[in-house]
């Protein structure tokens, strides 16, 4: 199934994947003909395990190079410069074995911020993430929700244009999930493009401006979230929303 609808979006696409193919051991894991992500609100990727969501996200972020095809950001192929303007948060937060503040300092220092500026930025970020007072605590001793909040703060520390999130709330309780969603929406309002994977339809309804539904390594359907939830065009979309198993 390679006739894919290009996301009918509102602005010029900020990300585009064209003819993207990844094959391993003779099995086609990813096969995306043309996917353009535009709009200013969050784009949420839905689909069953093994649908290729994480793989596609890593391709869009430049962590994985596809066997074929290309990914562009604002028309430019993804390279070091493009990746500097992106950030990614993983399902399990990968925190350095340092204090909370040192985790944030690590990225700010790499961007060449002076000591005073870093300190002020860290204080602001910690306050934003509700982690004030925990700056000297070992990052790896934080709770799951706090750890994911720190990972998001670290990703946001350098004001990325695009923030990728790979199921950031899959292991969190409702309260911690709400905190994360608040942070994501706040970042989106500030102009950061959010591209996120979730298995939670409720979360997709709450956050999504656009939806990309994946199945078997391909894009089954993509478009504005209200269209998808009101009148899904694909069979996979209809089954997904009806609560059926999409394999």
């Amino acid at each position: 199934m390679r006739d894919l609808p290009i996301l009918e979006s509102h602005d010029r696409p900020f990300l585009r994947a064209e003819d993207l193919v990844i094959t391993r051991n003779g099995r086609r894991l990813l096969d995306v003909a043309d996917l353009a992500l535009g709009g200013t609100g969050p784009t949420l990727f839905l689909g069953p395990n093994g649908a290729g969501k994480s793989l596609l996200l890593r391709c869009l972020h430049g962590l994985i190079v596809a066997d074929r095809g290309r990914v562009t950001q604002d028309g430019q192929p993804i390279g070091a410069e493009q990746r500097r303007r992106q950030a990614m948060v993983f399902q399990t937060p990968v925190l350095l074995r340092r204090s909370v503040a040192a985790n944030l300092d690590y990225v700010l220092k790499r961007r060449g911020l002076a000591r005073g500026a870093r300190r002020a930025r860290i204080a602001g970020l910690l306050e934003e993430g509700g982690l004030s007072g925990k700056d000297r605590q070992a990052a790896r001793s934080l709770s799951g929700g706090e750890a994911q909040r720190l990972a998001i703060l670290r990703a946001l520390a350098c004001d990325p244009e695009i923030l990728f999130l790979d199921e950031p709330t899959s292991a969190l309780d409702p309260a911690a999930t709400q905190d994360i969603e608040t942070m994501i929406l706040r970042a989106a309002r500030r102009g950061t493009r959010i591209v996120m994977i979730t298995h939670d339809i409720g979360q997709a309804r709450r956050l999504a401006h656009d939806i990309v539904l994946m199945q078997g390594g391909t894009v089954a359907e993509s478009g504005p979230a209200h269209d998808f939830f009101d009148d899904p065009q694909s069979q996979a979309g209809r089954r997904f929303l009806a609560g059926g198993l999409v394999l």
Partner: protein
Amino acid sequence: MQGFAQEFTMAMGLILSGDPELWAIVLLSLRVSLMAVLIAAAIGMPMGAALAVGRFPGRRVAIVLLNALMGLPPVVVGLMVYLMLSRSGPLGVLELLYTPTAMIVAQVVLVTPIIAALTRQTVEMLDAEYAEQLRSLGVSRLASVPTLLWDGRVALLTALLAGFGRAIAEVGAVIMVGGNINHVTRVMTTTIALETSKGNLALALALGTILIGIAIGVTGTVSLLGARNGQQEMRHA
């Protein structure tokens, strides 16, 4: 039994009275082993990190070889270093045989594979966890090495202590290249061997007690560091 108690009392007396000969031997042992560990760390840590992060042909073979070298027989190392440093050897011109420097060289050969192998293991484990995140943050493979070494500092300190434990307790290699010369190359282990053969059990026991104390100190520190590290990991999980 009475004889042993008497010798042990005399040994404690030597320790507590600050016997200059005894403490000179202890200090030389510490100087040689600490210097050896320092040099071995300077060689072994970058070597281990390079093996963990680098991808090159023969890497697997190098890792297997490095692990095998951890069990190098000290007398064989002593023999090799002896042959290198003896008058007719390639480094004979340096006249290092039967000096503390020769003993440091022998200990460096013994300890470097231990530190390199443990560093490789630590950095590789951390790299598996960090690699994708660091790439996402724009950190290159080479630039990730200092981050991995710093974040693995507790485990790496354990590696250094393990190396020190091996060095300070070593006897075969240092006696071959050091010669056990009084006031020059006599260290704890070689003195214990010599004094026991002479029947001077008090000095041997005193040194043995200090050596055991150092071993317990090193093992205790390694255990404490390991437990602290483990607790932090558990909290994270």
